[in-house]
């Protein structure tokens, strides 16, 4: 038994040798990273933060110290702790996973927790404003409830009957991949914020917006779902309002290809069904609806 550890040691060290070099080197790199900040004095930066209740408010300057690796949300928290205890901000995970801390940083819709100060010019004040497409509540907090209402208007996931005798389904990874992209969405609503239909024209009740179109796409392309939401998309979800400026895709922190992969295919379905006279005729004669088509795709 006592021979065990030394035998083990031998096996281990032979495999780790090549690795050790890599680790030692990256350790040196890691150490170097922190040295650059340890050597310099603590700097400070100015944050120009929107303060206000309801529609009225103003940008106010706060100065706070910055250290290596800080993100905008850290600065906001420091400002809260130091000078503005009642500064309202939403945040939860601080890891880019919950989509709560959406704001406009130097005019760009971003997550505060994923925006590092090192990407910003700290010689000038950093502007931090709430998402402007939504009614302001207080400071950086806005009323995003329209998004929750819009989701309820989309008809719910409705699966086909289970395939297998054990009551479960079979689906290929390739089919899962297609909708998994859409299901990555963290509901930060930055795409809604930047969409001109919502931001400039305030058509929140007529147009569900990119986030909810991604949700609809996820349902429409879900390998198990059998509903056809094409009519809804055209009539009540206002998909026609989108004129494919792709701003939503640009700001998505999850890098979902919103316009090309979600919205355009949905638009194509609407066009196929409503504006293609030949297809309409064929459907009329054969009495087929898209639920059949959908099932055909899966099998």
């Amino acid at each position, binding site marked *: 038994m006592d021979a065990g550890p030394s035998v083990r040691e031998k096996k281990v060290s032979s495999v780790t040798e090549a690795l050790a070099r890599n680790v030692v080197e990256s350790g040196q790199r890691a150490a170097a990273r922190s040295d650059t900040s340890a050597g310099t004095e603590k700097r400070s930066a100015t944050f120009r933060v929107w303060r206000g209740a309801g529609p009225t408010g103003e940008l106010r300057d706060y100065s706070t110290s910055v250290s290596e690796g800080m993100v905008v949300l850290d600065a906001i928290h420091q400002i809260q702790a130091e000078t503005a205890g009642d500064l309202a901000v939403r945040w939860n995970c601080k890891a880019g996973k*919950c989509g709560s801390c959406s704001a406009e940083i130097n005019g760009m819709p971003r997550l505060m927790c994923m925006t590092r100060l090192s990407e910003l010019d700290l010689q000038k004040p950093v502007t931090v404003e709430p998402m402007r497409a939504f009614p302001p509540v207080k400071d950086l907090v806005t009323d995003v409830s329209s998004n929750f209402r819009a989701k309820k208007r989309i008809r719910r996931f409705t699966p086909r009957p289970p395939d297998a005798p054990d009551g479960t389904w079979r689906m290929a990874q390739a089919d899962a991949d297609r909708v998994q992209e859409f299901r990555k969405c963290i509901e930060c609503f930055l795409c809604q914020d930047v969409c001109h239909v919502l931001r400039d024209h305030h058509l929140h009740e007529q147009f569900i917006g990119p986030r909810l179109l991604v949700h609809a796409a996820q349902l429409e392309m879900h390998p198990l779902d059998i509903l056809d939401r094409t009519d809804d998309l055209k009539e009540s979800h206002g998909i026609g309002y989108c004129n494919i400026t792709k701003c939503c895709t640009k700001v998505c922190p999850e890098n979902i290809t919103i316009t090309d992969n979600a919205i355009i295919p949905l638009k194509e379905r609407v066009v196929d069904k409503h504006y293609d006279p030949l297809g309409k005729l064929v459907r009329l004669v054969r009495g087929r609806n898209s639920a059949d088509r959908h099932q055909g795709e899966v099998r």
Partner: protein
Amino acid sequence: MPEYQRHEHDVLVIGAGGAGLRAAIEAAHVGASVGLVCKSLLGKAHTVMAEGGVAAALANVDDRDNWKVHFADTMRGGQYLNNWRMAELHAKEAPDRVRELEAWGTVFDRTPDGRILQRNFGGHKYPRLAHVGDRTGLEMIRTLQDYAIYQPIDVHMECTIVSLLKDGNRIAGAIGYDRERGRFKLFSAKAVVLATGGIGRAYSVTSNSWEYTGDGHALAYNAGAAVQDMEFVQFHPTGMVWPPSVRGILVTEGVRGEGGILVNKEGRRFMFDDIPENYRNQTADSEEEGWRYTQGDKNARRPPELLTRDHVARAIMKEVREGRGSPHGGVFLDISWIRSKLPNSEEHIKKKLPSMYHQFKQLADIDITKEPMEVGPTTHYVMGGVRVDGDTQMSTVPGLFAAGEVGAGLHGANRLGGNSLSDLLVFGMRAGKFAAEYAGRQTAPRADTQQADDIVRVALEPFNRQGGQNGEGPYQVEHDLQAMMQELVGIVRREDEMRRALDSLKALRERARKVSVAGNREYNPGWHTALDLQNLLTVSEIVARAALERKESRGGHFRDDFPEKDPSYGKFNIVIRRGPAGEMQVTREQIPEMRDDLKRIIEENK
């Protein structure tokens, strides 16, 4: 007299993460009128952070798996302090709960024949975690959320509960405030389900979100319910350590499940150096065998990186303490090395661990497909919580239920990765069902409004202290509390340090009593922090007292002054209640004798 917005429900669910949503859905299915309170917006709860997967013995990848093996794994991981009835129900029901998610829209990763794919995880004998890349929690909460919004459930978003209300001995509802306007809401309910999550914000290095201030633990304790196992706090072995502002953010165990290895600054794979006796038969004895295991070889045993979290966290601490750590006080976690094994390793890593890839790229400028990460332990989970009946999830207060992290019992002294998501589903469902049934048998309780008025008066006090001479704000007190708990009641504990912690808590409580907040009641984080602070102080003291009482080392609880496991401590749970004079009463409660059939299962799986 304060004004209230009044709401009436059969069942009030407090917390809208996985457990709360599942409970609300079930209670609605049974036909109860349901209110669901979220501290944040719907869908933002801490469940979104869960990465690795949900443990269920589906046996899709390895047909040797079944509920018995899952049960035995869970008990072994929990060092046999688990509520064995919960461990049994959990192992039996998790597969159905996972399949049900699929019926509600979850798109899990697939096996080549199109079934739900399962991955390896620490302490699980077979590949058992159904997953979606490394964002399983997000997928799960979104599925439950998108299912729940079509159910008859009243959702109260951005609402924080400050106290439960009672009618005599039984539960009568709760009182809280809405964040937007600061108005008080009075909920009358025949049954209340706590699903508030954990206590991670009591520590400075944590993977937990701001909401994790032990609200449910404190609400239950204040209402007279017993809490147990609170000495068992799980420090996840791999949190980010650099840069400082991201310290504590989780690095999923999935990295190790996919073949990632832990090495010290000398490049030594130190996890092979110390393998606990009870896991020796299940652990690989060469790197080569460990690699084969991560690639699905059924004849290989798991690499030591996939030992239980308590063990891995302590092994990392040891390397750091003995001077073999990484530059920023952690060790290296390397997945990039698999390029020597897989030709397309970079694409493979990005596909299997997409959020980890982005997290390190964006927050630390590190490409994990090319170089190692620096990682160290981070406060992650509390095994302890409200003491509940294993079948119904009802606490010692009639009508008060608890599910998910705020409940205790399933995990014993240490939780296995993947068992929390299944916990949420299995016991969320049970709590919702039994709460609804209980409510159906009750007449409407009468909440004492005098009680509510007093709570509101106390909650508003920080505003009245505005401009006073002791005008300290809540953030500094919270910060000092977190630093103190990290240092004195953290991953390695000692009697003298914990005594000092109790003294500090007394002083911090005094400071908290005097904090003042600026501004008004509308969306005021200073005020919210002042109120959350009360809960943090309560749970911190409970943790410290429980940790003092357990004079041994076991699972998530490690005593430097009692480094060995003591079998006599394996027979009871440490239970804490509020005494008649408001003092904390610490008792030891015997664990009921396990059923013989379950004992046999454990023997067979030794």
